[in-house]
């Protein structure tokens, strides 16, 4: 006699908590063949704004943490993912309809990607910063700092992206101290919310990563035009009216990374897209 399973309720992940959409809306998540998987929360404009508020309030703590600390926190995510490989692979098989081995490869790639970025946390400033030999008696140094709140549209392609795509955009943004609001894969959001559970039980402070499920087309314009969003990553927005999003972002000079095909490869450029270089001059004098 088989046991009756206990299905999970998939909600948003905002400010370290798992709220339903304030709109009360849900949408049906299915297998590629149409089988019912879950009712996911369909985030609204208000949810997006709440997420930005949560992200903003988390900036000072996260950006103020030591780089060593952030690196360990990111590595901790990889550790927890490793322990839940089976669950993630299972969700990928169900929602993407891919083979078990392809799903396992995606989970492995995601874990390795977190490890790769984790290692950058306390090195990036050394590579991206500079001591500058100015012509005068000044100590002059340039360092990268997080830009603040980054809104992200996660990669949306049919296969291979539901977990890896999310990691590929979230990890490079948060490792320098940014906080993010990320709109998950619309059709296959289960891995994203399960990742939220991992984040909630890892040492990532609440509000550093906020995950919205629902329609990127509906949510993205509110995030793009939001004055308290410092940067916009359109990685997965290729099928949206993304030029309008970039135009909206220009209103407050929001930094924009344009859509790109495929899943963003691990890269320093991606880290650098969401930092500001600060240069400090200090007078040198004996007295």
């Amino acid at each position, binding site marked *: 006699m088989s046991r009756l399973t206990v299905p999970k309720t998939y909600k948003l992940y905002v400010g370290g908590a798992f709220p339903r959409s304030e709109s009360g809306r849900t949408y049906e998540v299915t297998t590629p063949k149409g089988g019912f998987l879950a009712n996911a929360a369909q985030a609204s404009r208000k949810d997006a704004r709440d997420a930005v508020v949560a992200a903003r309030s988390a900036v000072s703590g996260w950006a103020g943490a030591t780089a060593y600390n952030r690196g360990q926190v990111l590595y901790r995510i990889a550790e927890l993912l490793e322990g839940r490989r089976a669950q993630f692979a299972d969700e990928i098989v169900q929602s993407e309809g891919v083979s078990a081995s392809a799903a396992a490869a995606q989970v492995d*790639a995601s874990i390795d990607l977190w490890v790769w970025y984790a290692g950058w946390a306390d090195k990036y400033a050394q590579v991206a910063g*500079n001591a500058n030999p100015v012509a005068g008696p000044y100590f002059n140094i340039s360092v990268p700092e997080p830009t603040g709140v980054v809104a992200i549209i996660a990669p949306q392609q049919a296969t*291979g992206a539901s977990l890896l795509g999310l990691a590929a955009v979230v990890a490079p943004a948060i490792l320098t101290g940014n906080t993010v609001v990320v709109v998950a894969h619309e059709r296959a959001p289960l891995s994203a919310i399960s990742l939220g559970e991992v984040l909630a039980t890892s040492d990532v402070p609440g509000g550093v990563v906020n995950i919205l499920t629902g329609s990127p087309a509906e949510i993205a314009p509110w995030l793009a035009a939001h004055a308290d969003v410092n940067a916009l990553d359109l990685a997965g927005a290729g099928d949206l009216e993304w030029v309008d999003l970039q135009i909206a972002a220009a209103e407050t*000079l929001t930094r924009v990374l344009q859509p790109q095909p495929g899943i963003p490869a691990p890269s320093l450029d*991606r880290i650098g897209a969401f930092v500001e*270089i600060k*240069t400090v001059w200090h007078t040198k004098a004996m007295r």
Partner: protein
Amino acid sequence: MRFLEYAPAPESAAILNLKAEYGLFIDGEFVDGRGEVFDTISPATEKVIARIAQADERDVDRAVAAARRSYEKVWSRMSGSDRGKYLFRIARLVQERSRELAVAEALDNGKPIRETRDVDVPLVAAWFFYYAGWADKLEYAGLGPNPRSLGVAAQVIPWNFPLLMLAWKIAPALAAGNTVVIKPAETTSLTAMLFAEILQQAELPAGVVNIVTGPGSTGQALVTHDDVNKVAFTGSTGVGRMIARSVAGTNKKLTLELGGKAANIVFDDAPMDQAIEGIVNGIFFNQGHVCCAGSRLLVQENVHDEVIDRLKQRLSTLRMGDPLDKNTDIGAINSAAQLERIRTLSDVGEEEGAERWTADCVIPDKGFWFAPTIFTQVSPAHRIAREEIFGPVLSVITFRTPAEAIAKANNTPYGLSAGIWTEKGSRMLALADQLRAGVIWANTFNRFDPSSPFGGYKESGYGREGGRHGLAAYLASGGWDAAGGAAAGSRSASRAVTSGAKSGATKEQRKATKKAVAK
């Protein structure tokens, strides 16, 4: 003769050998523009200095085509060391003709010769000298083993540091292997024309640098041109916003260096003599026409009265007048329009309840002048505390604790620069961490160096000019992202995409662009 009164010591304009009229500089030649020729005047006397050609859309098109040709046929194929040698030549020619350039700049811009001679022009030479050395070392710039030039750079610069901004734009662009079409500000084209002569003396290949003069519409035609790969703009946040919209949906790389409302924070333990000089230099340097000017003085409450008294005393010794006089500290406001804006905002300051003090200066009969002005009793909500005045007007705000200073300093949509005055090093560093601005000066202000990156946070724009980071603004990284070292599994699953840049804007995107620009 009263105390502090000096006999005039004007620098002679005889060193200049100006033409009555200057054309556009396209493909190595001076050519006529299709637009209406306009006057460039001295803001100190309102006398016409020369007539300047105006480029219309077709002229811009011709300039971009020349830049494209020379990029493809000459500049992108030339060795880095040869590109560097041209830049070294330019640096030397600027040094050789520095007196002439300094005089021309003071005449055309209205800023004092003391500044053009000691700041603007030496920095211009330094900028070319610095970037010259990068031209054959791009693989060490931190962008991977094979950084690539972008192509044709469209550059639009402001009137406050005409030749210096030109150098900030052209030197890194050329070092990185790009060609350039640059548009000087409408009121300050003169030194760009002299610079064109220098390029001819340097025998820089035709088309590598093209200069189109004219008003905002010329600049708009340039930055929205379909065949440019890079847009670099220094100017107002309003125009920067428009440009950011106009490049949306294209693969043009964009850097924007926009407005500011910098806080200059003075603690009670500051080295007071230096601080007073620093405050003066922070806001009255270049008549306050400085995007990174320390226009908000945040002074600790217990030293407020002392600082203000000493400031007033110091300002009373500044000499305003003939920009060409070597004794002049404060020159002319660059244009009638800018003077009007400064007057308007200053009047608003009084209307909103701030207390105005103006240095007792003799205002010349002709030209555009505004005496150094301090507003006290300013609230952070006042317009003079929020809006960029871009003139010799200082708004004074008090604070009690470092936390309050940080909160007030960051309470602005801008984030270009900030100053900190304290003898306590640990507090200086902690404060520097907390200030959201791209350049922080501690116990100094308004220092610039080609090796030092400059640029803003938030609505002060993005991208950096100067240093390695300024070079990166003109390069695409090449080589390492895909091979970045992530574990093999990640590489196969992520179907590594080396570059997100799309091959070009689609027709729809261009339409969207036009729409955006029209807004």
